[in-house]
């Protein structure tokens, strides 16, 4: 099973209207190669799930500037003024989610957890529309799992089976989204042979990765 694909082969799996999770934190750890290709393909009406909306010229932000996104679920949109502008003008739906809750919702989606209880957001607008559950005199919000059609991750090093090693702080949401989508596409900075990553150093097991595209910078 050869997981190495051309960018065009990978793009066949990203279509208008899909829900796409994208790794990265303020653009660091985001697969820019796949953003480039999505812009070139012009895929539209996307729902994006990501930590943040990037910068106007970096990461997820470029898809927003190019008006390919109809909705974004993220914890922070402050570094991309265009996100706020489109939100205020009604062009874009923005769902703001506390960062820890967002990470845990994606993990839950990938790990088959039906929901989890958290104190984060109690007493704030985040409560709206959510079940509250009492356990031993404490009130929690029930937060539900998140999944996506496609997840786009950025691998610092990947072997041909799809085992991933993320350098430094590029890890962030990447290992989480890799578990929570029907199709997982990795943009790779470096591809190595099977056996080139020590089994103890693997951060995303290859069983989660469907496709590898080379050429990420």
């Amino acid at each position, binding site marked *: 099973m050869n997981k190495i694909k051309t960018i065009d082969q990978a793009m066949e799996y990203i279509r208008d209207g899909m829900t796409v999770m994208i790794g990265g*934190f*303020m*653009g*660091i*750890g985001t697969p820019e190669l796949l953003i480039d290709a999505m812009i070139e393909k012009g895929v539209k009406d996307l729902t994006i799930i990501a*930590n*943040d909306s990037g*910068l106007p010229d970096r990461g997820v932000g470029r898809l927003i500037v190019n008006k390919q996104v109809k909705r974004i679920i*993220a*914890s*922070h*949109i*402050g*570094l991309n003024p265009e996100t*706020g502008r489109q*939100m*205020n003008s009604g062009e874009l739906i*923005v769902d*703001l989610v*506390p*960062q*820890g*809750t967002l*990470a*845990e919702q*994606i*993990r839950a989606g990938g790990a088959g957890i039906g929901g989890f209880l*958290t*104190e*984060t*957001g*109690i*007493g*704030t*607008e*985040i409560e709206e529309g959510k079940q509250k559950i009492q356990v031993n005199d404490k009130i929690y919000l029930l937060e539900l799992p998140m999944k996506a059609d496609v997840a786009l991750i950025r691998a*610092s090093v990947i072997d041909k089976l799809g085992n991933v090693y993320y*350098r*430094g*702080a*590029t*890890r*962030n*949401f*990447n*290992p*989480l989204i890799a578990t929570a989508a029907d199709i997982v596409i990795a943009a790779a900075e470096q591809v190595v042979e099977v056996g080139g990553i020590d089994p103890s150093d693997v*951060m995303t097991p290859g069983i989660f990765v469907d496709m590898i595209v080379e050429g990420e910078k």
Partner: protein
Amino acid sequence: MDDTTAKQRIAKRAARELNDGDVVNLGIGLPTMVANYIPDDVHVILQSENGFVGLGPVPEPGCEDKDIVNAGGKCVTVKQGAAFFDSSVSFGIIRGGHVDTTILGALEVDEKGNLASHMVPGKMVPGMGGAMDLVSGAKKVIITMTHTSKGAPKILKKCTLPLTAAGQVNLIITELAVIEVTKDGLALKEIAPDTTIADILKSTDADVIISEELKVMEV
């Protein structure tokens, strides 16, 4: 006092709240400045919510590693003994009570320890990022901010902006005062040498209890 001097004073005072061995998360902006004033004999471990403990100083130009950035997306370094992890582990640390102290900025704080820091509806909506999880999860929440904004009080009877967290703030440090959130209300613990109680009360909307052990703030 100019803004820079005020912020330096606040950061310096906040640094004195940190204890040797503490795990600390510093918000973006003024809170980040606190790192510059931590005494040499106090070793704290800085957590960066984008995925590591052991945050070090800003690198020399030319020595930046593009893969090592802080929660503001800025190039940083890590110290020896640092550890990287993913975002679910990072917020497990935060939510699980393993951060001793978080120091954050604020737009408004009120008598109940409520905090508004993440949005001004219709104007500025950056999002809460990790702030809601941090203030819910950290053992101690310190708010650092200038006492007023264009003359308007930021310490209120009741927050007017959407809350970032309800009843989670422990301590407020401004250029004028150190105020503790107690179950009886806001207690003025320290006053800056260049102000008066009358001035503080005038620039504070909330009711303030003058602590019996009121001290002069070291600046």
